[in-house]
């Protein structure tokens, strides 16, 4: 496209230098002598030599293996307890609940699972619910929400985004919160009881605040109506999500944890990246320094079974986990680091061997002219 075609300037071009007969100072067309224009910019020119590559391999190996061991040990030391309460088995206490399910049933189905912890949980314990085969990352699912509405925008409250379809309006009233994500919010209730060796059941206090990201709780999610404490009045013109049993303003009695800023709701709304995921449900805080948070012994998990997963072969789990500096239990990183470190080291040895056997010969050989 830059091929030459006539340009009027060329009529001049030829003479600009030679026909300087006018006597004006003759400007040469000599290019500037700058490092940039002459492509002589000072530069660092690293090359892959045995002196740099081989030590690098060994050093990486030497760094990775200890890190990996550290990670692996840390991960292994994290105590974790997991129990599946889906109730697909006939033997499961929740079998009945899982079979007889309807979104609109008014009587909650309850089931109780017993389990025992072999080892005490010393520090704070985090209680999760886990779902599998639940495609919270499906594109149609992920986009089915209205962030403006959740951020307390009055207009979006009355006129939710089209993305929320088909959970946008119900009976000509806008749904709040709208969309498929909100509509499918996890609504099982999990209660944990410690069973003394003498048989008394003590409910373990579960903290339901502080489970969501600070930014979500304070910036991303806000109730409409500003500081109006009367949420019922704020949400008066809206309908509850189809699958919900109670409207959004009745999620909790605590005004700091009600409406859109209910932390259970916020946690659910932070969609998972993968179809198998766990979400923080409650925190069991360490009471005093003497006793472990969850001592060794028997426990019962009382489930109010509201959430159907049988249709899509999903599973529901309850997880109790401690936490370390690297988060929850996941041996992958440790193993990966150890493996990569070993491979590096091994490669280093192989390359060193090859370098000794062939390298010198090739590098010293001259270049044919």
């Amino acid at each position: 496209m830059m091929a030459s075609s006539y340009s009027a300037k060329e009529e001049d071009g030829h003479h600009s230098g030679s026909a300087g007969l006018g006597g004006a100072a003759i400007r040469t067309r000599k290019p500037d002598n700058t490092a940039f224009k002459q492509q002589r910019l000072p530069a660092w020119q690293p090359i892959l030599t045995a002196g740099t590559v081989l030590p690098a391999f060994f050093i990486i190996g030497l760094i990775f293996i200890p890190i990996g061991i550290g990670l692996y040990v840390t991960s292994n030391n994290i105590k974790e307890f997991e129990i599946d309460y889906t109730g697909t088995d006939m033997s499961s206490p929740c079998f009945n609940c899982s079979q007889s399910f309807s979104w609109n049933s008014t009587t909650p189905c309850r089931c109780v699972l017993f389990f025992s912890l072999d080892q005490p949980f010393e520090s704070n314990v985090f209680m999760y619910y886990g779902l599998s085969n639940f495609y919270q990352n499906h594109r149609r699912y992920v986009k089915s929400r209205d962030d403006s509405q959740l951020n307390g925008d009055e207009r979006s409250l009355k006129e939710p985004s089209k993305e929320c379809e088909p959970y946008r309006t119900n009976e000509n009233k806008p749904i709040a919160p709208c969309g498929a994500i909100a509509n499918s919010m996890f609504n099982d209730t999990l209660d944990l009881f410690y069973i003394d060796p003498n048989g008394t059941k003590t409910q373990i206090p579960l903290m339901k605040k502080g489970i969501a990201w600070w930014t979500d709780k304070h910036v991303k999610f806000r109730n409409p109506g500003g500081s109006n404490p009367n949420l019922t009045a704020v949400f008066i013109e809206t309908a509850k999500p189809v699958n919900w049993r109670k409207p959004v303003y009745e999620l909790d009695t605590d005004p700091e944890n009600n409406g859109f800023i209910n932390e259970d709701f916020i946690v659910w709304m932070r969609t998972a990246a993968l179809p198998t995921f766990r979400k923080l449900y409650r925190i069991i805080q360490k009471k005093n320094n003497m006793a472990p948070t969850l001592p060794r012994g028997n426990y019962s998990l009382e489930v109010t079974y509201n959430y159907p997963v049988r249709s899509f072969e999903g599973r529901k789990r309850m997880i109790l986990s401690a936490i370390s500096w690297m988060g929850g239990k996941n041996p992958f990183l440790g193993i990966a680091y150890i493996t990569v470190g070993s491979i590096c080291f091994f490669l280093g040895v192989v390359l060193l061997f090859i370098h000794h056997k062939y390298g010198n010969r090739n590098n010293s050989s001259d270049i044919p002219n």
Partner: protein
Amino acid sequence: FFLFIYVVFLYFISSEERHLRANDREFNLSFKYANNAIKTSKYNVFTFLPLNLFEQFQRLANAYFVFLLILQLIPQISSLSWFTTVVPLLLVLSMTLAKDLSDDITRHKNDKQVNNRKVELLINGELKSEKWMNVQVGDIVKLENNEFVTADLLLLSSSEPLNLIYIETAELDGTLIKYTISILYISGEVRCEPPNNRLDKFTGTLTVGGETFSLDNERILLRGCTLRNSDWCFGLVVFGGPDTKLMQNSGKSIFKRTSIDHLMNFLVMFIFGFLAFMCTILSIGNGIWEYQEGNSFISFLPRADGANASLSAFLTFWSYVIILNTVVPISLYVSVEILRLGNSYFIDWDRKMYHVKSDTPAQARTTTLNEELGQIKYIFSDKTGTLTQNIMTFNRCSINGKSYGKSSKKKVDFSWNSLADPKFCFHDHKLVEVVKSGSPEVQAFFRLLALCHTVMPEEKTEGELFYQAQSPDEGALVTAARNFGFVFRSRTPETISLVEMGVPTTYELLAVLDFNNVRKRMSVIVRNPEGKLTLYCKGADTIIFERLHPLSSKLMEVTTEHLNEYAGEGLRTLALAYKDLDEDKFEEWKKRHHEASTSLEDREAKLDAIYEEIEKDLLLLGASAVEDKLQDGVPQTIEQLAKADIKIWVLTGDKQETAENIGYSCNMLREEMKEIFIVASNTAEEVREELVKKMSPESGDEPPIEKSRFLGKKSQVVEDEKVDGEYGLVINGHSLAFALQKDMQLELLRTACMCQTVICCRVTPLQKAQVVELVKKHKKAVTLAIGDGANDVSMIKTAHIGVGISGQEGMQAVLSSDFSFAQFRYLQRLLLVHGRWSYLRMCKFLRYFFYKNFTFTFVHFWYGFFCGFSAQTVYDEWFITLYNLVYTALPVIGLSLFDQDVNDRWSFQYPQLYAPGQLNQYFSKMAFARILLHSCYSSLILFFVPWAAMCDTVRDDGKDIADYQSFALLAQTCLLIAVSVQLGLDTYYWTAVNQFFLWGSLSVYFAVTFTMYSNGMYLIFTSSFPFIGTARNSLNQPNMWLTIFLTTILCILPVVAKRFLFIQLKPAINDKVRHKVRQAKAVPLPPPRKFPQRRISTRRSGYAFSHARGYGDLVTSGRFLRIPVKTRPALFPHTDTPVADSTPQTYRTIFEEAQSP
């Protein structure tokens, strides 16, 4: 009815013929001829936007993105927000828009400047200054010295004697002489041809007062020329503005594309196929998923009404087309153009390709071909003006058996001669002393040189002589005579005035016995002031020696020895002789000469016979030797290029002997060559026999041909064959004509390619192009043609890359070239440094660019298996938008602008570094396949490592981190760091700019990410930035950083290991050189090797007469009779030199030979 006839008549006239009256505006305006305003700009204020956008959307890439945009606007399909496409598209469109705008503004400015130039018009007998654009057809224009020619003019009169004027044709040709009609003021009518683009032709008639003259091209001054050495002239505007031949010729030229372009087109097609393949797999997956899982998941994720698995699969296909479109990134084309432009600027800026003498920097006229400069396999070079300077210096002479000019250090002082040319150098004092002492032979020698020629003198001020010689060696001889005291001062058709040793003398010129190829000599017959008649003759030695008087036989022997010596030094020699004539005999001869020259049939032969009659019994005076100076550094350049395995073919219009001679002097032909084949046969059979038999007689079978069929295009590729020993091939134009015929061209190619050196002499411009085309077509090799003259234009346009030498010979070669510079020796820098770098950079750029985009895209593919094939993206939409445009754009451009494996000096030290380009080693389909695999590996790492690391993991405070947004952030950060480190691995040459771009881009990534994920952005644009807080909440986790570190190491580990292994086991040439550079850091580079002095060849060079019209006989043989050849009057040599004869070399000949029509 009559009116109707009249209208038809008018129409007929305006379409078929131009009719105009001088100085009659009213009459001329009635025809609505274009006035002299020109318009090269494309747009105006109103048409710019719509027209430019329309043009841009015709480009496939842009249209493709509009298609994507439309897809994105369909809610069921849209998997990405519209801005991911709109932002890059707008950026690309606006960049192109800005570039086109600035180009067009420049054109407007130039137009305005040109249109507003002032010129003097002669209106009603008065001179009036007028702007160019207001000049109308039929106006009479007065031009002054050094002014541009305003429009196509019919010359009326000039200030110069003989009514000649001199013009320089900037764009078209060399310096020319034109004739005027010498009528100062006319009111005539002109009828002529309609506007056309034929530069060499003009037909028309001029009617003045009932008398009709015919007009031809010699009387037309074309726009684009400049008046030189003439005080003024008057001209009648015939064509104005857009109708001028110059503007008619400025059509669109052929758009050249590089082999990388072709490969890229192929790859883009492949990528489209690959994209469709991936999308198909994913949409099938989606169908299966919807059928198996989606049906049961409906309670949580209801479908739209009427949607089922197959519809969903269909929609998903398009959704994935949107997501995966980044494999065909729009920014690729933009970036490629940017870096080609950048590399072109580096060529323009190179001081080492700047010629001080002519103040000419190198120029990349086409900015889209740079990388092909690194792949040249064949160079086709013109000789005159390209290899040689086209400057002749009078070096030696032999007078009366004594040889002069053996070089001594001191220059001869010519200050005793007030008319001497100060630029002339001679190194032998003896000759001056002999001249001064009045030796009759020496004086006769120089008198001959001063009389026997066709040079035009020019004396503007007293004592300041200029010679307008049509060929430089004739000028050299006349200048030599001038300095030795025989000053040629002026001529009229009947006389020649000399100043002989300070004494003005006038000779009567009685006849000029012109030169032609057969005669190989030229004579003049003059009468000196004393009334003595003398014939002076100069010509090729063999010819002259045959016609010598027996008295000279002894002198002849001595002179022959001298001639051999001169020839050994590569000089062009001429023998000089004279003869005194009787008055009676001459009168009688003259009568017969007149008869012969007026005879209508067989005039040439008759004239030759007449000439032959009088040019006999000559007395030898001696011989002159003129050096055809090679350009500086030509043998060295050729040697360097040969080392880089580039084959150089010389295609010249010169004679075989001259061409061979130059071949020796620039080291292309060498004594130690096993054999040098000379093919000079006159029939097809002989040529075939010579071609087949000469080379490898044992394998006289068919040349090995690899036939391939690709997309219905049949192509034959002649493979290279190995031969032991070096051979050279010299073939002349006659034989070439046969050898280029369809059935023999492969034989020719095979033989020629086995030879180290190929010289084709006496070839026509068309044949030059045919030879280039032959190699281009059947060798699948990249070709470069270099030349300086108009006769090289065809091959410059044909070859993949055309290089013009911007020399003294006008600009036509430069104007049709892709690159231009002043000296042949810059070619090695253009190829070995700039070309090699450009190729390296372009390939690195493409490899890296494809790598980063494939890696980016394939992660989506893997994610598809975990999100129900729902076309959910892995990354944040903003990251997708900015990845190519911001985060990775500058580092890769930095890489492809500044990278160099070794610097220029080392590139010269090891020309072998050039070989990978010729073999397409850095970027090919194979390389592309490797990139694909590499990206596949990287994307697997980049998806599955974060996947495994995030699976069921939480933050160190127990909160969520395996959520989609954190995962997206992790994946994109891993990706960006991994590709940045890969870029670092690819970079050989880390300048501050590279560092700045790389670190800057990474910082910008984090800065932009934190900004977009900030509270403020979310509160202002809630729906556009839903990732609020993600960066803060997850990038403070050690887990994240450990994952990023791990993926990066895993991505580059195999690359480093593989590269190291290759360096150890099978190092490439540039690995070796880079290693050497490293070693040599302490020890400075050895000084550039001294090239051996030019070998003194013992071969007898051809006693070349001058630049002969090399292919004249070919043209007359009718085989290539494309251009009508004109006859010209025999006696006066300056009558015809077309402005832009497309049989160019004309202006190079000393002696215009008469030609048969």
